[in-house]
């Protein structure tokens, strides 16, 4: 594993595109998170114009809600697309540079090649989860007045939720990369699916006119997004007793993990059979 990661690291270390995209991703991530509170309060202000009793401004960055809210805002569709595109580029590059052929000729088995990309995905997910946790911890500490340990550790299941989301989504990207092999095509189809096709399918399937049972939840990307489906908005809870999501559940993680596993299996079988 270390050997394969070492090889992967050499491939990305001097790769400008990778670092630029990663930089843009972090900027988006930071902006998204920092803007979240502002956006929500802006909404509250707008609502207040029509309400007799104004709602108070929300603070979404105190413990334990900070875990949920950062996990949520860091995994909205438009931000999540970045790590996916990075993975697609790293995989399809190997086909356009034909370095996958050279790697195999030099003595890397096809399975090892796949594993090296999977290890990289796991590593990126771990690193991003660490960043997210440290970020959430710092933000939480600076926004919470009275901190108690149970308060701090409540909702930390969202850390795992974030990890599962980022991991499975990158595996979807891995699938697109290996099956399509062409950078432009894979990015275009992935983006098209994630931002347009699935949202349309979602509303179509959700409509009770079409299907009696709501099967929209089985859509692959939707399954990923539902791991951390809702932010925690304390006003709603206070005023209406409404909680949208309390925890990341095992059941919620299961479907995307099943999809991702199936995709890995399909990629392995295809690569074994297909010529390079």
């Amino acid at each position, binding site marked *: 594993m270390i*050997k394969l990661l*070492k*090889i992967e690291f*050499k*491939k990305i*270390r*001097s*790769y*400008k595109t990778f670092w630029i995209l990663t930089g843009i991703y972090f900027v988006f991530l930071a902006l998204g998170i920092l803007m979240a509170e502002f956006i929500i309060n802006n909404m509250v202000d707008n609502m207040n114009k029509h309400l007799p009793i104004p709602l108070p401004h929300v603070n979404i960055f105190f413990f334990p809600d900070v875990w949920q809210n950062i996990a949520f805002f860091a995994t909205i569709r438009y931000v999540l697309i970045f790590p996916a595109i990075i993975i697609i580029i790293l995989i399809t*590059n190997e086909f356009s*540079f*034909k*370095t996958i*052929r*050279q*790697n*195999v*000729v*030099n*003595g*890397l*088995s*096809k399975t*090892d090649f796949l594993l090296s990309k999977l290890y990289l995905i796991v590593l990126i997910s771990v690193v991003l989860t660490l960043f997210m946790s440290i970020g959430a911890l710092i933000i939480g500490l600076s926004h919470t007045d009275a901190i108690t340990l149970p308060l701090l550790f409540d909702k930390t299941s969202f850390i795992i939720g974030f990890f599962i989301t980022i991991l499975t989504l990158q595996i979807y990207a891995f699938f697109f990369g290996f099956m399509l092999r062409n950078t432009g095509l894979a990015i275009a189809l992935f983006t098209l699916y994630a931002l347009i096709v699935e949202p349309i399918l979602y509303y179509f399937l959700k409509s009770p006119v079409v299907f009696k049972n709501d099967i929209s939840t089985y859509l692959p990307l939707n399954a990923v997004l539902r791991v951390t489906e809702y932010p925690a908005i304390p006003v709603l809870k206070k005023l209406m007793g409404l909680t949208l999501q309390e925890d990341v559940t095992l059941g919620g993680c299961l479907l995307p993990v099943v999809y991702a596993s199936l995709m890995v299996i399909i990629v392995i079988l295809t690569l074994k*059979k297909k*010529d*390079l």
Partner: protein
Amino acid sequence: METVLSIQKISKQYGKIQAVKELSIEVAKGQIFGILGPNGSGKTTTLSIILDLIRANKGRYRWFGEEPSSESRKRIGSVIENPNFFPYLNPVENLKIVADIKDLDYGDIDRVLHLTGLYERRKSKFKTFSFGMKQRLAIASAMLGNPEVLILDEPTNGLDPQGIAHIRNLILLVASQGTTIILASHLLDEVQKICSHVAVLNKGVKLFDGKVSEVLAISDSFELGADNREALIQAISNYPGFKSLDSSKEILQVLFKEDVVNPGKINSYLFSHGITLYHLSERKRSLEQHFLELLQNNQ
């Protein structure tokens, strides 16, 4: 002789096109084995199959007498088609990846860069290289760690005459150290200059194989004319090394087996038999012509 590579009746089909058909080849340790054939004869397909890039439809192959695996490929250095490296990395970074895959340390990188004349450019990105330099990096990569077998697919493709001479000398140097070399080429002259053994392919079928000196023996033809035609035919048929003659025209076309005949010898031989020639001319056939004949005779 220890067999390094044994290919047994492999076939590969792309749709309707039969790229390789029941091809069998044996390469022994220490040979410089040429795979000679025109473009599209199945050379690269064959090499891709034995390097696990392409799956054969039928047949099997063995490396070092074993079931082929990624471990056996680590003992082989290969250049396949175009040089494939990361464009944004320099040669040293690219070769480090190769060394990592092959479980080699980085100590050998400077040596192969020196050997291929790329050492001065070791800090330039691969994408800034000319095609010739890319090709030389591919050869450097194949030579990394002194592999037991070197597979070279059109190694001098795209090189200038100086580069071609350099690479050929390099191949001969590596071969002199006991490395087995498998070289695919469409250049008869290249195979003849470098290889000890050869298999000739056309349209995916092996026409023949054996020692280069036997398979590619060049016989020269001479045009002879004398007043006494019958005596000339009689005398020349008894000449050592005589192969065949074409007497359909006034001037005889005579083929000899060996490369050792020369006009002087023939002239003095015939003169000693009382024949005076009024026409004597040597016709050296080009290697390409010879190759085309080989292909035609086996169609």
